[in-house]
């Protein structure tokens, strides 16, 4: 499903991704772990098309199509979804207006007709209920005044509505207490499907207790340095990243 081949990317003069190669199969949940500054968040931004980064080499293929030829919105409509580490507050944009615009953009891009309002409302209500997103939150401007946990739930709500092929969770556990972590993880787990892959980027093992990965990849110095099964995450929890950071020094 997702094939990243020899990806090099930089921001300004600073090289961040340095020949990263990674394959994630359909239905797979791949965890990316790594120390601070290893390029994890950059990877999520480069896949989803943030313009601040320059890709100097390599390919990112989703179902064989090179994402690097598309802008961020085209990638989103092709099935990439990034759950932000720090979801943006957008004052003045009503959450429901935003959700409808996003869902209609997907519908249009995929040759479907735009959603009728009752259908839209029903889908939002159902998804919101599962994630404990209150009607009050839906009435507010997007993410404005939301707590950290509420913002993350709103991210997962959007993912549930947009039904991506690839969900990227960027440090979704940061700023969450245990209860919020459980709700968010259950939301993600409910979206696991044979034709959907996840890239779960995290610094800590904790999140992986709730979202069980199929594969674990250690990232350091802009590339994947080790790949293994779920046991690798436990190992890291004990030994830390010092083995991988050490090489950089």
């Amino acid at each position, binding site marked *: 499903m997702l094939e990243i081949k020899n990806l090099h990317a930089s921001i300004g003069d600073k090289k961040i991704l340095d020949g990263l190669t990674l394959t994630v199969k359909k239905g797979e949940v791949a965890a990316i772990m790594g120390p601070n500054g290893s390029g994890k968040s950059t990877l999520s931004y480069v896949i*989803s*098309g*943030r*313009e*601040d980064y320059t890709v100097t080499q390599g390919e990112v293929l989703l179902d064989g199509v090179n994402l690097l030829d598309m*802008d*961020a*919105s085209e*990638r*989103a*409509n092709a099935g*990439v*979804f*990034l759950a*932000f580490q720090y*979801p*943006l507050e*957008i*004052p*003045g*944009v009503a959450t429901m*207006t*935003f959700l409808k*615009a*996003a869902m209609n*953009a*997907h519908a249009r*891009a995929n040759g479907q007709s735009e959603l009728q309002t009752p259908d839209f409302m029903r889908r939002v209500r159902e998804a919101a209920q599962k994630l404990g997103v209150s009607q009050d939150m839906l009435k507010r*401007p997007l993410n404005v005044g939301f707590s950290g946990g509420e913002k993350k739930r709103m991210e997962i709500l*959007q993912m549930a509505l*947009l039904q991506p092929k690839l969900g990227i969770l960027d440090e979704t556990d940061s700023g969450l207490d245990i209860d919020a972590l459980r709700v968010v993880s259950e939301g993600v787990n409910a979206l696991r499907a044979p034709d959907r892959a996840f890239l779960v980027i995290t610094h800590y093992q904790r999140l992986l207790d709730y979202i069980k990965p199929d594969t674990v990849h250690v990232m350091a110095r802009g590339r994947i340095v080790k790949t293994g099964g779920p046991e690798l995450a436990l190992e890291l929890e004990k030994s830390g990243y010092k083995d991988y950071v050490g090489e950089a020094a």
Partner: protein
Amino acid sequence: MTLQRTSAEAALAADYAARRPVLFGATKMRDDAMARFLEAGLPNRRVEEWHYTDLRARMNEAAPLRSADAAAIGAARERLTSLELGEAIVVVMLDGEFNLGLSSIGARPQGVEIGSLATALLDPANADLIAPPGLGEADSIVSLNAAFVQGGAFIRIPANMRVERPIALVNLLSGGPRHAAYTRSFIELGVGASATVWEISENSGGETQANDALVIKLGDLAECDHIAQVHHRGEKSIAVHTLLATMGRSARFDSFALVKDTGFVRRQMFARLEREESHIGLRGLSLLRGEEHADTTLVIDHAAGHCESREFYRTILDGSATGVFQGKVCVRQGAQKTDGGMKSQALMLSDDATMYNKPELEIFADDVVCGHGATVGQLDDNQIFYLQSRGLSRAEAQSMLLQAFAQEALDHIADETLRERFASEAHAWLSMRSKA
């Protein structure tokens, strides 16, 4: 120091001398005002309050006054229909003169006095009402208005009356050959009265010079919502609007102005909070593009304590437009417990646009809470990316953020119908931009 008069100033002096015998009433007010105007001349860069809006440079020539002919009246009637004023009580000034035929004041509640300024000034006692002493007197454009005023509405709402329908004051300039118009309207809300005043000022293009003043007197406990929309098309048009408001105890005045499709406009508001516990809120949205120039200048005089003032203005600038915001809050020595908050925020869509933000506080009391904030910025790339990452195109994302920026200002309009009407006008302006 007396500067040499410009040709426009000389023409105004000659025109005043020629017209003086035929101008209705209030001769002393006019003469005094004209003397003040001639002393100061047209406002220009050397006058601090007009530093960013150099009217002397803009106004090369003084346009002549004129009375509307049958064709102009016909065109005005059509325009009034297309304005869809709904159930409003409509008072029309055409080319500076009060026009009863175009007005529809039949729906006014019994006891509400609505008439022509000219008629009201037959009673000399009324002259003081339309020029509140000490309010805006130092401004030469206000003086010019007082000297030349051709007509206006004179409205009095008796104590404790709630006027449910909006009172629409429509100032139309018929355009065509270059001409000027001077109106001054007066609205008094008696003790405990309330009303919504909807001011529409527009031309139909051309080189018009409009100088309008609105004087609002709020009695104790009176409440007024004021909504203004300004459309003076034409690269060479000039529009100057002055609001002079005095407020009694526990009175409330909330004003919102939408400025768009206007070549060159100065809106200036002078408000005096004369008794305790009153509230004033001045807000607005200006949408500027091309070579347009829009200036909003406020002077709030907290003359009594325990009052609250709020100002909130947003400006979107495109092309090589110029925006000016000057907000001055004066708190007099005795005006303790004043609560003042002022904000002006501008969003620049072009490198060639210019915004001048100048908040000022002058505080002589020691127990007050006053703050101000002024920002000039661009659309946030992080927000754009966030929206794009959900599938919205870049243009859609920008448009959504611009709508949001405008909407946060529009949300201050209390009347739902007017709020939606203004929102759709702002929307149309913004979508024209995204098509361009």
